[in-house]
């Protein structure tokens, strides 16, 4: 499957008088596994929000493949092949796990806003959802309201919902935040597996995850890119070391 890339050109974002993103130019190639790291307050999540259409940019350009997406609403961006997860788990907490996954499949399976199609008769859709459920190892939690799942289970569900629609660009915002070591290992294996062949853009604080998973790392400090390249290059960059002061000594 030929994937899509994301390119940012001199993207700026101000909230009132404060400029949070101060001219970011970045090119994420199709199929790349790209991690964005940086100290707190650098603007990583803001950058995600800009790319995914949650906030409008103040100036610059964001492209998904060849299409400009910085003026589009989130659902339009999603339909063009970009999907994201959230830093604070964002699922349909009152619906069952199965329903959560099924809802993530609806649009990509062509159901649109139909109010005449009975869902229980949709064999292919339901089978797909069931398959996804088992792939995420949540089979035993099928009929549990998503809000009652454990934290790690919810994060897994969220990842599942993010990739369900078949998006070719996946944005993951701190997917392993708050996880224990075992849970992190498990999540990493899951992420590696489900984003096979897709473009992955990830914000992470856990350096082990970053260096294991990413083939390109971008370092964001105070809304600007101070380094971008393969892990070894970034690791040995002076500017990065200064910004982090030893955090990269893994």
């Amino acid at each position: 499957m030929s994937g899509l890339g994301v390119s940012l050109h001199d993207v700026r974002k101000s909230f009132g008088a404060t400029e949070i993103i101060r001219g970011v130019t970045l090119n994420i190639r199709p199929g790349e596994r790209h991690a964005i790291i940086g100290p707190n307050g650098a603007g990583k999540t803001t950058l995600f929000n800009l790319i995914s259409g949650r906030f409008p940019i103040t100036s610059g350009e964001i492209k998904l493949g060849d299409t400009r997406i910085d003026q589009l609403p989130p659902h339009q961006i999603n339909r063009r092949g970009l999907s994201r997860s959230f830093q604070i788990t964002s699922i349909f907490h009152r619906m069952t796990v199965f329903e959560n996954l099924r809802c993530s499949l609806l649009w990509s399976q062509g159901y649109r806003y139909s109010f005449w199609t009975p869902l229980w008769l949709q064999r292919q859709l339901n089978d797909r959802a069931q398959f996804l459920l088992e792939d995420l190892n949540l089979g035993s939690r099928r009929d549990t309201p998503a809000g009652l799942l454990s934290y790690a289970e919810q994060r897994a569900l969220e990842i599942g919902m993010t990739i369900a629609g078949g998006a070719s660009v996946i944005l993951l915002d701190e997917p392993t935040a708050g996880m224990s070591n075992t849970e992190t290992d498990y999540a990493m294996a899951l992420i590696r597996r489900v984003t096979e062949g897709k473009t992955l853009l990830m914000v992470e604080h856990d350096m082990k995850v970053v260096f294991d998973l990413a083939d390109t790392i971008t370092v964001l400090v105070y809304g600007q890119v101070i380094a971008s390249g393969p892990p070894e290059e970034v690791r040995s960059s002076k500017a990065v070391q200064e910004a982090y002061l030893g955090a990269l000594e893994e």
Partner: protein
Amino acid sequence: MSQTTMASASSAPAAARRTAWAWPVLLAVAIALPWCFYDFTAGRHSGFMVSMLSQTGMMIIFALSYNMLMGQSGLLSFCHAVFFGMGGYVTIHTLEAVGKGMPIPMELIPLCGGAAGLATAIVYGYMATKQRATAFAMITLGIGELMATAALMFHHFFGGEGGVTSNRMIERSLFGLEYGQGIEVYYLIVGWTFLAVLLMYFLTQTPLGRMANATRDNYERAQFVGYDPRVIRFLQFSLAGLFAGIGGSLYAVTYEIVTFDALSGALSANALLMAYIGGITAFGGPILGAVLITVLQSGVSLLSNSWLVYVGVLFITMVTFAPEGIAGIITAHGPVKRAGMLGRLAVPYVRVIVPGLLLVLGFVGLVELLSFLTIGAAQGKKLVLFGSVLNINSAMPWTVAIGMLVIGGGWLRFESVSFGRVWDDITSEIKAREKRS
């Protein structure tokens, strides 16, 4: 308590299979009910019961359609009665037109009301769904007040203060019925209510219905699975208006008159009340609420002028202690029943119900006494209890009422603590069992 209720408000397959028996049973009950009050010696139906049952049917449709917005889409609307009323007004005019020759049989008349409700909801829904949360609610408040005020003002179509009237004996029917008698109209209502409820339930099992729930739970996540939440809300709003219009249509056929009351904020508030008290998280909740409120309205208002106080207190109690409504309370017992522990609650319930009854009676007594002291006296009425007149000026009734209130209240407080403990014990046992299996 909320955790078990959440688990019970589960996905359609499990819950639907458990309650599938309810549908034909309820239909049978609805059909048979008037006959339980049939006066066999005089050979006619109880007018009061048929009227109340007819009202219940309309209100079930109205409350369920309101819950399409509130419970299922997370939309708080204050103008739902507008679509009910428009359905009513258009129906009256249609009846007039049929009287003059338009060939529409009575059984299909509610479709016209539905169409009117739908059209109005499309127009206003387009405006209202442009905004979210509070702004949405306030727009609907404005729309509701606007329409109610307009209905009072304009004589053409709305008939001004007097409203519009018609005659339902239009002599056009698919089954050859005249609809002159209340019982015939009742069965028309039963048919349409059943159809409407079925359709509204079906709607919850479609992509739109499910995504409406999803949008309610998480607006942003819905966007990121590819849906425009605004379109979802707009469609739900319009369809809810369709069903409200059907309800209004049945109202028009039953009462043969529609006034601005049918669009008023008070009626919209009624929908809110019925849905909330019945329970907005379960599909059938509003049905329970509609039945309860209509029965209270018809029954209690005959016995007491202060019935609005009781509604207010019931409402406040529900909001504070049982926000998931009656349906929520029922579903909370689901896991308990399935674990076979329902019997353990029998005695605790009795211990809670007795002081509870005492408290309620004391409160009602006090309210009635006060009401008769001030208002009733001015109107020259006397308080009659079990056939004998009570002297409201003597100390006895007052001390009894206050005594019951205070004792009932204190005792209930005491008992509810131990009830809570029993409940918690049962819930943790169930959880432990689940963990082991």
